[in-house]
């Protein structure tokens, strides 16, 4: 008889998700789905609010990457205002976004994924958590805690709050950087270098022992999307998007925030509240793509900072063309952290960073605006329409997790088919299926921002495709 395996909840994720694996009469995997089962509603309840409230409202979507929402939202507002923000404000925002990337990646790598990587996929699940890592590898545990604190403390120094800082506003930032804060951040940099180098060394030491996982953890050719500068260095806050194909060839370049919805569409599947982004000319699902650390490194020709550039060179040697296995998101995440530390140091070394002109002002000069940025887990686009009074009439947010949604589902199916044979599986096997999702570090609270897209319907089918049971809510 057919059987359904449910992993609910999927643990060590940002938010709540569920995986369903369908087995046929022979116990072989026929299908698998990663479900996002929560619903939020931000796009709907933003309607009627003044546009200048949007950054603070939208940041509440997420407690892990509120800065990316702040920045993408502020940029959408600046498009409505038709202003260019001061150079120093742009650099301060860049630093804030990188600090968030460092803390979010530290959380993902050390707290959520390192228990699998350092203790083993088959290790005792009762000890497979951050406490287990700390007990087994205290130096690495300390490094992870310090790196998260490094990023969070910079956010707190700049925005006066660790979570949901209100410092980023349409037009720039609310206050300039004080020299004492600059010096405090610079004083933290040497330890941050020590910690990330330790993590990179530890990761490289163990990565090859995961060769079987590398082969089946969402390891398939796909498109990749990410921000890049004109000089082909990686970018997190400005620049424009580039889309490359599975061979690494550019298929769409210079995608500004305003052009985003010309080239990117969103599909809906009946099993998830998260939408599925795709490249319009190829349609859905052929136009599905990946975003985030792996995509950024596959797209960038150079990081633009010396240590991260050396690491990028090593990373590029993993494959001819784009690195395809999503297992390497872990590796790319650590290189992102190294880049973030270097770039923060570079930004703070520019004397103009203390300039006091950090905000431009204007009213409503356009009735529509878009903004984009790289969140830690990938590209983020905010698109708003306003009336002549600046009240929001429509909003759409395309979130990184939605852009990785198809890849996560393909990856879950790939791993489930590989590991589950004749209906037999162990806890370690199910943990591997979950670990595929963890490589993407999805943020599920970010991804389900629309209300009324679909009802949640749970359907149980037998091997003949006949409906056995259904629950609708």
């Amino acid at each position, binding site marked *: 008889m057919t059987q359904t395996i449910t992993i609910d909840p999927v643990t*060590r994720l940002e938010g709540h998700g569920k995986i369903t694996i369908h087995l046929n009469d022979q116990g072989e995997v026929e299908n698998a789905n990663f479900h996002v089962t929560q619903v939020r509603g931000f796009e709907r309840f933003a309607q009627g609010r003044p546009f200048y409230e949007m950054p603070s409202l939208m940041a509440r979507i997420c407690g892990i990457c509120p800065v990316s929402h702040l920045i993408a939202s502020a940029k959408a507002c600046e498009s409505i205002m038709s202003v260019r923000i001061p150079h120093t404000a742009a650099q301060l925002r860049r630093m804030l976004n990188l600090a968030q990337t460092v803390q979010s990646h530290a959380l993902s790598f050390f*707290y959520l994924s390192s228990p699998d990587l350092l203790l083993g996929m088959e290790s005792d*699940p*009762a000890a497979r*958590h951050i*406490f287990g890592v700390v007990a087994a590898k205290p130096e690495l*545990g*300390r490094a992870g*805690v310090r790196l998260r604190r490094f990023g969070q403390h910079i956010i707190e120094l700049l925005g006066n709050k660790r979570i949901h800082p209100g410092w980023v506003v349409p037009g720039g930032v609310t206050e300039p950087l004080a020299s004492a804060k600059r010096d405090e951040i610079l004083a933290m940099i040497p330890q941050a270098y020590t910690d990330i180098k330790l993590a990179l060394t530890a990761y490289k030491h163990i990565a090859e022992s995961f060769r079987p996982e590398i082969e089946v953890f969402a390891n398939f050719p796909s498109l990749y999307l990410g921000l890049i500068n004109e000089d082909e260095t990686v970018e997190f806050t400005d620049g424009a998007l580039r889309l490359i194909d599975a061979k690494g060839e550019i298929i769409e370049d210079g995608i500004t925030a305003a052009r985003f919805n010309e080239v990117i569409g969103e599909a809906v599947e009946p099993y998830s509240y998260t939408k599925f982004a795709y490249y319009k000319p190829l349609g859905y699902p052929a136009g599905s793509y990946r975003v985030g650390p792996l995509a950024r490194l596959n797209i960038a020709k150079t990081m633009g900072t010396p240590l991260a550039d050396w690491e990028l060179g090593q990373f590029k040697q993993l494959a001819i063309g784009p690195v395809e296995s999503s297992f390497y998101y872990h590796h790319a995440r650590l290189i992102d952290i190294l880049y973030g530390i270097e770039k923060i140091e570079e930004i703070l070394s520019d004397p103009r960073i203390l300039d006091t002109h950090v905000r431009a002002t204007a009213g409503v000069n356009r009735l529509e605006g878009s903004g984009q940025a790289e969140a830690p887990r990938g590209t983020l686009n905010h698109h708003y329409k306003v009336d002549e009074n600046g009240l929001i009439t429509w909003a759409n947010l395309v979130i990184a997790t939605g852009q990785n949604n198809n890849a996560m589902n393909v990856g879950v199916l790939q791993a489930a088919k590989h590991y589950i044979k004749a209906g037999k599986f162990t806890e370690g096997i199910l943990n591997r299926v979950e670990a595929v999702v963890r490589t993407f570090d999805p943020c599920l609270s970010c991804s389900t921002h629309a209300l009324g897209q679909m009802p949640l319907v749970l359907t149980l089918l037998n091997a003949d495709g006949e409906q056995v049971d259904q629950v609708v809510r």
Partner: protein
Amino acid sequence: MTESATRCLILACGNTLREDDGVGPWLAAWAQERFLSDPSVRVLSRQQWTPELSEEIAAADSVLFIDCAIDADPGSVHLTSVEPGDESPALATHHLGPAQLLSLSQELYGSLPTSALQLTIGAASIDLREGFSPAVNAALPDARASLELAVVRLLTPTPNQ
């Protein structure tokens, strides 16, 4: 022993938008004022207690955790000692309890405060609103007095110190 800068760390937890859950931050704000002139008392208020706080805890001589309790009688005030421990570690990525934080401080930094106390105030409601329930409002004087007493206890050297 080496004197650390913080002789008493007050660590509050809660969300002021969730009714009685906000009592921790409220007491932290009160403590900030009350001990403003004493540099050996440090007050931190967070919506969640995360692993990064273990460094602050390891560096303090003593720590007072403050939080609401949803499993206690509404408005009841309890002051108890805390020991390092392991409460549901599998879920310990975004929020830790006092015992876990102490345990993590010991594991990561090989250091623990000499004394650790926990002050809890029983919550009647943690609904989405600001302000407190009548039970918690009525308990605020007791909670302040217990907080003050706890800090005095924690700042008083024990015979071994």
